[in-house]
């Protein structure tokens, strides 16, 4: 039976690890959870940093924690919300990998008396109290307008994205609409599937550029294809001939902006999303007597955190992303 005891030792160690991280269960401690649809992303780390900082501002009795599936699966994210609900946390910040899928879990949390604030991507059909985040259509639109400014009617654009996520679709639609509006002669030549991967983007964009030598702009609809697009342009030895509009400001993107290989990126404000989200949730938890829920009072229902197009001169503040633990 020695082997069984060996097995038990593993379990005990694991449990001890869980137990070791127990927060002090003092009465006044409040716990807030953040649920993201893709854990382990620089973007969401910025958002979490905002949440952590906001929590610290409120007081050191606030504890926060980050949860989320490692792969993009909206149903797994909904599960995390349900677990936090069952645990009875004081507030949840969530980002909707798929709005429709999240509705039921969000409504469940609200029904259990837990304020839920969405950030980054909204679930407008749910009972969520508030949303703080980028309007993705507008973000795409800004990029489209910038590209129109760069090249006017001469813009020939290739887009790198992958099918599935709602917000990517909105960005691409916003981009296409605003580009067409600002430069009617411009054209989106082809959209390729980067499978959400950097190396996938490199392969797909290299092929796209060869099939369409007229392309002079690449729009990356999310964080990963930017560096892939730069590598593709490097492959073809046409650095400088193609303007890349990346998305978000991961460190590799910043580096490439500095080196001139990426012209600009669409910078969202994830830190503010987390910061505002935390404040909104805390506000909902501790209502002040001013009528809430109508967009007036301690928490608003919609906070647009905005985007800015970041060029080489704008990127310094983003070079030191937050770290945890």
């Amino acid at each position, binding site marked *: 039976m020695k082997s069984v005891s060996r097995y038990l030792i593993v379990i005990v160690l694991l449990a001890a690890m869980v137990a070791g991280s127990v927060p002090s269960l003092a009465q006044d401690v409040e716990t807030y959870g953040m649920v993201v649809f893709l*854990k*382990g*992303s*620089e973007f*969401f*780390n910025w958002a979490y940093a905002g949440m952590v900082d906001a929590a610290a501002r409120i007081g050191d009795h606030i504890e926060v924690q980050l949860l989320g599936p*490692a*792969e993009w699966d909206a149903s797994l994210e909904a599960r995390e919300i349900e677990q936090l609900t069952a645990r009875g946390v004081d507030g949840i910040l969530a980002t909707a990998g798929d709005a429709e899928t999240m509705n039921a879990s969000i409504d469940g949390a609200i029904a259990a008396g837990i304020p839920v604030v969405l950030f980054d991507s909204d679930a407008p059909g749910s009972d969520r109290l508030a949303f703080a985040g980028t309007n993705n259509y507008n973000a795409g639109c800004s990029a489209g307008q910038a590209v129109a400014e760069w090249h006017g009617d001469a813009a020939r654009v290739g887009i790198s*994205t*992958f*099918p599935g996520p709602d917000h990517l679709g909105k960005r691409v639609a916003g981009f296409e609409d605003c580009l067409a509006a600002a430069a009617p002669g411009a054209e989106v030549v*082809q*959209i*390729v*599937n980067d*499978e959400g*991967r*950097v*190396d996938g983007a*490199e*392969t*797909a964009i*290299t*092929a*796209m550029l*060869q*099939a*369409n*030598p007229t392309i002079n702009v690449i729009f990356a609809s999310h964080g990963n294809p930017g*560096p*892939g697009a730069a*590598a593709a342009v*490097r*492959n*073809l030895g046409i650095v400088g001939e193609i303007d890349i509009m990346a998305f978000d400001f*991961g*460190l*590799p993107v*910043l*580096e*490439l902006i500095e080196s001139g290989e990426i012209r600009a990126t669409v910078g969202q404000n994830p830190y503010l999303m987390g910061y505002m989200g935390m404040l909104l949730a805390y506000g909902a938890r501790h209502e002040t007597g001013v009528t809430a829920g109508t967009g007036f009072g301690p928490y608003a229902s919609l906070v647009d955190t905005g985007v800015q197009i970041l060029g080489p001169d704008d990127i310094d503040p983003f070079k030191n*992303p937050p*770290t*945890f*633990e």
Partner: protein
Amino acid sequence: MIKFPGLPDKSKSLLNDRSVILALLILVISIALSLLTPAFLSSRNLTFVVTGMTYDLLMALGMTVVLLLWGIDLSVGSVLGLTAVVTTMLLQDGAAIPLAIGLGLGVSALCGAINGFFVAYLKIAPFIVTLGMMSVARGIATVLTSGYFVSGLPDAYKAIGQGRLFNVPYMVYIALVAVVILALLLRNWRPLREAFYIGTNPEAARLTGIRVAMITMGGYIFCSLMAGSAAIFMTSRLSMGFFQFGLGAELKAIAAAVIGGASLRGGTGSVIGTTLAVFLLALINNGFVLLKGSPNAQNVIMGGILVVAIMIDAYRRRDRDEN
């Protein structure tokens, strides 16, 4: 007088019949593509098809050896991610390039050694062992980076993946050399020859005096090292490290090796076949983009190719399976 005819056809020859089928398929698709789009048949495009397939090729070659040994390695994608993260983090912290690469490859070899130890010495089903390693390696990569991209790599390191000779990236030469050497070794090198025996009948191999456990373990280490090498190329080429590198790569590698003639029941596998299969898949992907296919259909196409490959293989085997 006894005649000594050439080497037997089965998996020993450089060109077995599977390779011929694949080569024909490649030819047909190439002709079709060059007729359909002028962009296809340029040396530049072909160079990039080959460059783009390097990572998949390295991993598929490693997988071929593991399949040959009647094993499977589901952890290669995660090992790639872990190696990428470890190497680039070391570089970011200012480690010398050879040291960083060495430690990175060391980590991948360690993953392979753990897989191999469980499979070869503890006799645990490789599917499960490497499934566990898949979780563990990816998890460690996540923990190490907390999800951040790793960047700020020295230029000399980037040169590995981005540098060129005669306008062809170094890594293409390295991959080609790897293919040739491995093809020769698979034919002539004793440990790899013995791998065929092990994959065909492990118990008989043991009683024949073949170091079954050691060679099996070596196979897993080799497979992980190939994934690690892919990680070095990928990070230096893309100038970054990321814990999600290699996500889903294991299934691609297995599919390529099987299409190339390896069997999940061990004992067969061909370097040339695997190489051609990877090339075929890369061509199809390339053609897909060149012809502006809908991005949505890509998965269906890949799955469909696997099914077709299965059918062709079944057709090819129909005589052999009589008994």
